[in-house]
């Protein structure tokens, strides 16, 4: 280990030297607590701080809020602002590890240019904890009290001097002129870190934690926590690994000019999973609490192969109710209810098309609009840039993020098949801000498109098999590409049956295409509606879509089922099929959640350990049916 000695009397000069080329951000007192802030006066630096209100790396690298895009009418791109060089000075081991976990989120699967620019310009001077804080439990996860990796320099307080370990070339530059550490210095360092380690008595037994939690999803402790928790979300605001954010467009009074901003958000908040029509996917506090706790203690590891909790203790310190992961896990361990064998969810292999800037929407023009029902339209788009259009391809069942600037962005599945060249289509129901704004647009108007994102229908695995489509309402839109796909490759698939249900005949989509679909060889289309208004003609079935199951003729043993519709419909489709002896391996569902990024960053679409945007939106039911808390 390469290490040097910095006498405490020299600290001022050392920091002053860093300040010549860098903005130095370090811990300073605020009331009885500490915060990381720009160091104007070295005297203000409090290196004996216990913890800070917000974690330094998250505060200065993730940033509580920032502008993603500036626009006027149609998009005007904004490149990340050049940040000057900075040094985060005196970062505890837990917070450094928190940063390394954030790196996994923001630097992998579509690297975030804004985060990346700041990350690359920030040097880290870590600080080992020789007198650990009282709420921390970093030793449980090997994320403290001393830092092993990820720093440029790392300090250890040895009384009258700091030992300075070098972790990078950048760090080596900074220590020029310091004397090398002696053997005695090393001994003193190791001794004090060992003592520190022993002082940490709070502990979570991390072995097999994921399985234990999974098995105890219904443990009584969660109801106790629900009664106490104030749902204030402070635990997530202060957590060094919480990455979730929301995205919103703000306009000035011209109503044209504005910016798209992101801001920290929290899964503890009721509105976190809100979509159009005020539908909330996670409507109860107990589930939200579990989303947080499980995410910290197991999901994060499953998603990013990095710790979701680094044991900094902030969530406990900041909680008026002192809701404490250490205590909760201890309670479960004292009285575990291991009712079933569980297998932890593993996300599918990443499928990412590397792009320059994942936040930059491409302009697309509306070529035509076709009214499907009173509130549903099919839009045919083409990218303004012919090269982008030429290169654009996608699998059936994936989605785009569609922007109306000044209104917002919405995740919407593509309703055309990539066989259609030169254009692509979306079939959209006007229900929320973005979709209502889309409904106001006309041919020739411009929108922003990011995508395609996610995994679609398993058109490869389906080859040689019978295919059963079960769609409800607007859920036919993401399945239409499959129909087109099979039509174009008819002999590669077996029997093909389409079951489609709607509330009323008036709500049926793509009605002018049914004749064509019926003409596809060996294909049958069955329709049903919940009710037929008086005076309306209807020659088909009446009842929910599952009533059509009695009519199907595909070979159960050799069929793949694809279903999409409202959650409640898919729930009954799946239940009914399972009851009839179908297997969860052969059923695929397409899920909808709130989505603010599409690129596995904002966290809005999380359903347990699953990112609906990148692991889905299409899932094999068998892969997700055992998620803690279930699917529907």
């Amino acid at each position: 280990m390469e290490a040097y000695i910095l006498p405490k009397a020299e600290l001022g000069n050392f920091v002053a030297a860093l300040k010549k080329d860098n903005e130095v951000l370090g811990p300073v007192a605020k009331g009885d607590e500490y915060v990381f802030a720009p160091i104007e006066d070295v005297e203000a630096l409090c290196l004996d701080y216990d913890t800070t209100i917000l974690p330094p790396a998250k505060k200065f690298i993730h940033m509580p809020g920032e502008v993603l895009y500036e626009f006027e009418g149609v998009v005007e791109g904004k490149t990340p602002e050049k940040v000057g060089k900075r040094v985060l000075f005196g970062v505890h081991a837990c917070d450094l590890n928190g940063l390394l976990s954030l790196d996994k989120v923001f630097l992998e699967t579509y690297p975030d240019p804004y985060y990346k620019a700041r990350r690359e310009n920030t040097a880290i001077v870590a600080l080992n904890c020789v007198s650990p804080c009282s709420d921390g439990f970093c030793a449980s996860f090997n994320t403290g009290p001393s830092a092993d990796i990820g720093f440029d320099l790392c300090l250890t307080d040895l009384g009258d001097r700091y030992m300075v370990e070098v972790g990078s070339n950048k760090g080596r530059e900074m220590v020029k002129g310091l004397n090398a550490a002696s053997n005695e210095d090393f001994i003193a360092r190791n001794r004090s870190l060992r003592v520190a380690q022993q002082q940490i008595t709070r502990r979570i037994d991390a072995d097999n934690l994921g399985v234990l939690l999974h098995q105890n999803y219904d443990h009584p402790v969660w109801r106790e926590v629900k009664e106490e928790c104030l749902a204030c979300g402070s635990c997530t605001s202060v957590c060094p690994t919480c990455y979730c954010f929301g995205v919103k467009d703000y306009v000035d009074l011209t109503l044209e000019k504005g910016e798209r901003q992101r801001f920290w958000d929290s899964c503890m908040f009721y509105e976190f999973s809100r979509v159009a029509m005020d539908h909330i996917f996670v409507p109860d506090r107990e589930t939200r609490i579990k989303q947080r706790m499980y995410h910290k203690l197991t999901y994060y590891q499953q998603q990013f192969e990095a710790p979701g909790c680094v044991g900094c203790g902030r969530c406990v310190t900041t909680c008026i109710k002192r809701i404490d992961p250490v205590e909760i896990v201890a309670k479960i361990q004292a009285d575990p209810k291991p009712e079933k064998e569980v297998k932890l969810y593993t996300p599918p292999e990443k499928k990412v098309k590397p792009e320059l800037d994942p936040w930059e929407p491409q302009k697309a023009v509306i070529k035509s609009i076709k009214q499907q029902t009173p509130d549903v339209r099919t839009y045919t788009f083409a990218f303004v840039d012919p090269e982008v259009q030429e290169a654009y391809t996608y699998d059936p069942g994936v989605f785009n993020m569609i922007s109306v600037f000044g209104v917002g962005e919405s995740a919407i599945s593509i309703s055309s098949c990539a066989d259609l060249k030169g254009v692509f289509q979306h079939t959209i129901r006007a229900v929320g801000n973005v979709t209502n704004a889309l409904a106001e647009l006309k041919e020739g108007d411009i929108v922003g498109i990011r995508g395609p994102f996610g995994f679609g229908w398993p058109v490869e695995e389906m080859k040689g098999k019978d295919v059963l489509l079960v769609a409800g309402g607007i859920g036919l839109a993401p399945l239409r590409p499959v129909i087109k796909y099979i039509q174009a490759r008819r002999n590669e698939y077996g029997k093909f049956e389409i079951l489609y249900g709607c509330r009323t005949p008036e709500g049926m989509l793509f009605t002018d295409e049914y004749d064509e679909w019926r003409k596809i060889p060996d294909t049958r289309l069955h329709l049903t509606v919940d009710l037929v208004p008086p005076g309306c003609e209807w020659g088909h079935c009446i009842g929910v879509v599952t009533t059509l199951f009695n009519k199907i003729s595909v070979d159960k043993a050799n069929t793949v089922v694809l279903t999409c519709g409202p959650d409640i419909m898919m729930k009954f489709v799946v239940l009914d099929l399972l009851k009839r002896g179908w297997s969860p391996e052969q059923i695929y569902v397409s899920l909808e959640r709130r989505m603010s990024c599409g690129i596995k960053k904002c966290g809005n679409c999380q359903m347990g350990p699953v990112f609906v945007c990148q692991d889905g939106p299409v899932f094999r039911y068998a892969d997700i049916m055992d998620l803690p808390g279930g699917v529907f």
Partner: protein
Amino acid sequence: MAKPTIAFFKFSSCAGCQLNVLNLEPVLLDIVGAVDIRYFVMAKRENFEGPYDIGFVEGAVTSPRELMELKKIREECKILVAQGACACHGGIPSVKNFSGMTQREMEEKVYTELWDLKSFPAHGIDYYVKVDAYLKGCPMDKDEFVMLVKSALKGLNPLFRYHSVCNECKLKENNCLVLTKGIPCMGTVTAAGCGAQCPSLGRACEGCRGPASDCNAASLARTFIDLGLSRDDVVRKFRKYAGNTPEFSKGAEAV
């Protein structure tokens, strides 16, 4: 396109919200440019009859005359906005609802001339009519007002977020009053949007914006008792600005 017409009305309240509209410099002129203010007795000499596109109503409803007017206003306004704590939840006037006195006793306490006075418990306006949007707070937040106007002009739902005030407090890295000073702050259960104004000045959140969207008032009431508040004090905390709401009532009833 003709500019949307706007009207401001006032019932039982202090006029603080309307004053806040006038305090909107420097954007006030831009707003005046974007809309046509047809009725604003506090600010204009010339006022016009409805209908209006957007009506902002300040104040609680606590008399038959106010109720009659409110119903007429509702009919006249395409979008009706409850402006400020009184119109949203009953606000300070609603303190009387929990005084334990009869309506007449209260009237006698406040007024000397009682012959033409007729009042009933104070409620927010959505107790009586459909409300399309809310501007919470005492007084309402100016930025939210501007955001709402812009959203209305664009035909959007402003999608205000009513998670707890603590979120804004944490982002400012305030020392939490409850944790560092034992001060009974209502921030945890109160709807955000004010930028944690009071806690940022070292003063407890009073709950003027009403309950947060996931409000666990009963749990906070228990914390207040632990902090040494009397039962009556806890009740007063939850009955101050939004005592009418079921969420805050749970706090008042928990101890």
